[in-house]
């Protein structure tokens, strides 16, 4: 509660304000209306439906308490999907941040050409996840893809239609590719904000580039690392539906069925209302938790 109050204090107005009886309501009305109709109402519907069970014809509905949730967490397919999503998110966040950090450190050191490299590296961010998926799918297509062909020449029989590990690799690569651009921008901005005098002083004292990176730049970059970690996990959890849907369709088997894909499939193909609603509620809880972590962090950044 204390932090609720703390945030409320931030909702300040200007010292000089206008006064009008109805104008402010008119001004907030469009956004509030859209929020209520398309956000709050559907979300509360999900909450409501998650405690109901409907028969197959939609004729009878009964209150079942938390039975939908209990069923969900006893369903090995759902637990597997949870595990898949966590693996996928960890890989996407890890790979895209590591690659972006290496590139950003390199770009930061070549001061003059940094902007050129930035231009070359940022635009995959503009490519839709689904399109990124299709591009990499083409590259790794077992019959005509160049990457699959190259792997074959190296003695690896790539087939993401059959091998779950291959399929996971494919969606991780496609999802990370576009996210590297984003992480790169933030790492580069973070590195460029570190005063050059610090690293130069260390250089004069005889610290090599690696030592300077580990003892000066990385610690000063840790807020950026933490921030990006949350953002990347949110991205991998919720914004990668297109990558999966356009390429692997959650397969082979359940190998790439991430939670967002599963909630969509259970709702629109399985027509399982109660289960889908319960899954939505679980997803909401995850977003709220992640947002809370992010805000806690931002607040601390403001304080110090």
């Amino acid at each position, binding site marked *: 509660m204390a932090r609720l109050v703390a945030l409320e204090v931030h909702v300040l107005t200007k010292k*000089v304000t206008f006064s009008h009886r109805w104008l*402010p309501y008119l*001004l907030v009305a469009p*956004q509030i209306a859209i929020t209520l109709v*398309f956000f*709050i109402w559907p979300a509360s519907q999900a909450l409501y439906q998650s405690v109901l069970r409907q028969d197959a014809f939609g004729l009878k509905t009964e209150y079942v308490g938390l039975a939908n949730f209990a069923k969900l967490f006893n369903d090995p397919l759902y637990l597997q999907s949870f595990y898949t999503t966590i693996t996928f998110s960890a890989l996407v966040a890890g790979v895209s941040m590591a690659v972006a950090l290496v*590139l950003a450190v390199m770009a930061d050191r070549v001061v003059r050409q940094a902007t050129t490299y930035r231009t070359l590296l940022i635009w995959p961010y503009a490519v839709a996840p689904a*399109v990124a998926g299709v591009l990499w799918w083409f590259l790794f297509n077992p019959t005509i893809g160049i990457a699959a062909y190259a792997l074959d020449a190296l003695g690896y029989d790539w087939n993401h239609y059959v091998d779950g590990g291959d399929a996971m690799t494919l969606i991780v690569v496609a999802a990370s590719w576009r996210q590297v651009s984003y992480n790169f921008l933030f790492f580069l901005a973070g590195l460029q904000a570190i005063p050059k005098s610090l690293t*130069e002083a260390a250089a004069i004292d005889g610290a090599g580039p690696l030592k300077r990176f580990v003892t000066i730049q990385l610690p000063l970059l840790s807020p950026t690392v933490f921030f990006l970690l949350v953002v990347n996990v949110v991205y991998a959890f919720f914004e990668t539906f297109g990558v999966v849907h356009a390429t692997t369709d959650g397969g082979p088997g359940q190998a790439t069925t991430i939670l967002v894909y599963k909630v969509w499939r259970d709702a*629109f193909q399985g027509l399982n209302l109660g289960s889908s609603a319960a899954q939505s509620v679980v997803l909401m809880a995850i977003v709220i938790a992640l947002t809370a972590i992010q805000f806690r962090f931002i607040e601390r950044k403001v304080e110090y």
Partner: protein
Amino acid sequence: MVERRPLLLFIQHAVLIFGAAVFVFPIYLAFIASTHTAREVNSGLPLLPGGQMFDNYATVLGEGLSTAGAPPIGLMLMNSTIMALAITLGKLVISLLSSFAIVYFKFPFRVLAFWTIFITLMLPVEVRILPTYEVVAQLGMLNSYAGLSVPLIASATATFLFRQFFMTVPDELTEAARIDGAGPMKFFRDILVPLSRTNIAALFVILFIYGWNQYLWPLLVTTDESYYTIVMGIQRMVNAGEETPQWHLIMTTAILALVPPVVVILGMQRLFVRGLVEVEK
């Protein structure tokens, strides 16, 4: 830097060039595929452009893939443009208005309004798929431009950014405007909006890309082909029936789908970088 390490400098450039090459490679291949015939693509893709470029783009833009049941790409491009612009402009307008109200007026329920907007951060469309679909269906908005754009228009991030910016606008301006007898809307139109130009432009880039790249939502609300957007249309082409996918045409479409947002991002790079870093702060 105070030191000279030629070897290190060489390695840095090598890593960056290699990185950039890996980044460009998928797009390069897609472009190559879009300049060849189906037979050339399927029998081992050449690494240099072929002579079919004009034919492929003309086919895709004109007829579309009739076999794949997709409408001409020209129509999908138009749908994507309409959706992206509607989402972008809609978000900008309602966010400007609501943040103006929240910063420049004291009124009952002000904090409640703020929190209602704030909570949308926690409810991305992916977590409320089915109920949102049902609302849109009940409102008769399936297969319409309104259905594609309006439900995505509420944006807490844009509202926050404008709110933060408005808080930095000097009070003297407001006072001066009031002394000169300007009402709130005149102040908003003639002073606040012009001052926000840079922020509006930066947000425009980010929101346009967001709108253009929507995938799940158009997939849900469109069953009528004439409302397909290009990003989701590609998926329909890939999974078309029993036939082998026509990769040369799919890649042509992919190139067309990614050119507009890439042009926007590169053309407004400085604003984009600034906007991104600021929005997420």
